[in-house]
């Protein structure tokens, strides 16, 4: 059965389902209630579930993320929305020093079943303080699980397994995806442990996630017209990485290009390439390549912002270079 919907509506349906299925689940964050969510994801949920479970918070990221951890320890299943990754910087301490460490540091006594949702990414002329793609940063931290839904199925299906997970799960929703429209297959199985091949091809593996998946698919389409069959992998889960799917693809294509909206230095793209080189160096026909954001604070002016981010022509050009 399929249904026409948007990424935003799929996220909202996932929230509704979770609230209906488990009375321990509640949503807390800035403007999630009366305002309906900055990106209108939680619109209507306050009316349906009431103020106790759709809980507006003050502008206190450190405070309410910490409170989310406490509520998880106290037996609830909180979903904390941090509006955007930019503001999550104000909550780095509870996320990294507490949520990620608690189980190990307590000798296995306290798990933190917390789900943190936030928008990420650039592309709307919001300038340097509202355009970060820092999900790669969070993938550095043992104890966290990091998800990046890039499709309607994942927007709809990742939340429930994330809530079933006994450990902290961070879900990064690329801000450019909320208006993504299409047919949602209601019965598509969704896990939070594997990468997916979104397009098959034998000449080159394009590895992308979140906001860059659409660009990678567009590039693959263009490359097909130019005689290059690109395989597109959607990472979906950024930590732990699904090495097996990545390696299986490149063993077929022998060429790999990573597309990552994060900055190049110390990026998730760097980690993926390091793993490939460590595990499959002699199976490569060309040095792995990547297309990342330019190493600048993301500027406001439209042409400059566009130039700073990975775009289809740059992906196509890098693919040609790899296959040349």
């Amino acid at each position, binding site marked *: 059965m399929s249904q026409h919907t948007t990424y935003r509506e799929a996220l909202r349906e996932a929230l509704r389902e979770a609230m209906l299925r488990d009375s321990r689940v509640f949503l807390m964050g800035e403007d999630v209630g009366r305002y309906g969510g900055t990106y209108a994801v939680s619109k209507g949920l306050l009316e349906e579930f009431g103020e106790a479970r759709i809980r507006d918070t003050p502008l206190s990221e450190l*405070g309410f993320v910490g409170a989310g951890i406490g509520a*998880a320890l106290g037996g609830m299943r909180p979903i904390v929305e941090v509006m955007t990754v930019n503001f999550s910087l104000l909550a780095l301490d509870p996320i990294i020093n*507490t949520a990620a460490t608690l189980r190990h540091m307590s*000798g296995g006594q306290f798990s933190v079943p917390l789900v943190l949702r936030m928008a990420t990414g650039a592309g709307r002329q919001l300038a340097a303080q509202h355009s970060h793609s820092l999900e790669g940063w969070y993938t550095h931290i*043992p104890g966290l699980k990091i998800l990046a839904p890039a499709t309607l199925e994942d927007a709809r299906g990742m939340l429930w397994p994330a809530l079933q997970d*006994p450990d902290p799960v961070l879900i990064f929703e690329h801000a450019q995806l909320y208006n993504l429209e299409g047919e949602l297959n209601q019965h598509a199985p969704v896990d939070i442990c594997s990468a997916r091949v979104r397009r098959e091809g034998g000449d080159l593996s394009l590895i992308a996630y979140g906001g860059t998946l659409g660009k990678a698919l567009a590039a693959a389409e263009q490359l097909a017209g130019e005689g290059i069959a690109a395989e597109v992998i959607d990472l979906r889960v950024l930590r732990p990485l699904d090495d097996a799917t990545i390696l299986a693809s490149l063993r077929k294509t022998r060429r790999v290009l990573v597309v990552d909206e994060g900055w190049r230095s110390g990026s998730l793209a760097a980690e993926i390439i390091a793993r490939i080189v460590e595990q499959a160096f002699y199976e490569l026909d060309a040095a792995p390549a990547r297309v990342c954001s330019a190493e600048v604070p993301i500027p406001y002016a439209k042409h400059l912002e566009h130039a700073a981010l990975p775009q289809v022509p740059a992906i196509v050009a890098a693919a040609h270079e790899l296959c040349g």
Partner: protein
Amino acid sequence: MSAPVPSPRDFALGLLRDMLRIRRLEERAAELYGQGKIRGFLHLYIGEEAVVVGALHALAPDDAVLATYREHGHALIQGVPMTRIMAEMYGKQEGCSRGRGGSMHLFDARTRFFGGNAIVAGGLPLAVGLALAERMQGGKRLAACFFGEGAMAEGAFHEALNLAVLWQLPVLFCCENNLYAMGTALARSQSQTDLCAKAAAYKIATQVVDGMDVVAVHQATGAAVEQVRAGQGPYFLEYQTYRFRAHSMFDPELYRDKAEVEQWKKRGPILAYKARLNAEGLLDEAGLAALEAEVEQEVEAAVAFAEAGSLEPQEDLCRDVYTPANAQGTP
């Protein structure tokens, strides 16, 4: 004049016993640190024992307790066995955190002791969340959060107080004001040194307490607990106390006068309370000696337990970074 010594006699003596248990445990830990048996940071609570003993005896056993990195006493009085605390400081797997936490990260799910938080003010938002969970599930348990006055300069303090009052949550904010944030005196670091006035800006009930007087602490905390449990929102207690020892084992104490320390020691919580018990005929020299011997025995048993403990196998290094599939998550 302080409130009368509480009755029955066993309870009154129990307060002294618990203060002595913390004192002797820590004195022994300091010695063991000198011998290299305990490493890392070791922050002693010596001088401040009346606060945690008086406060925790006013709480119910299943209330949640959160503390700082100076938390040996909090763990002990909440009910974590001294053996497991000592083993934790030794880094042994019989320790209350399997040796992963050490002195600063004592944890115990059984007694609802949520640590052992080594980020100043880090525990306050967690206490708010625990209280929120309790409220949402219709329970009556409180979350008591201990922190130093230094934490009141952190944003987390302000965010947590605002949330707790806004949502009228059952949190007991227990400020152990020992006058120094590591080496920085309160007056040198905070514009408002009247801590109750600062807290009251969030419309929270406040009370300043003589933190050197275990009876006063017990009484004031009991009154606050009653109010919080009755659903009247959170409560802020400032316990005025003093740390007799250095901040940690690495601190040369350049920031305070020896005379000041000596002055406070004259008001030592154990010294003062012993004298009161003696004056009221509740404890004679023989009784005190018996008590000391009992505590000494517990401490030595804890050391023997820690010495006999085992090291976690290195293969288990990565165990519990994530919850194993077959393991229980948070209760």
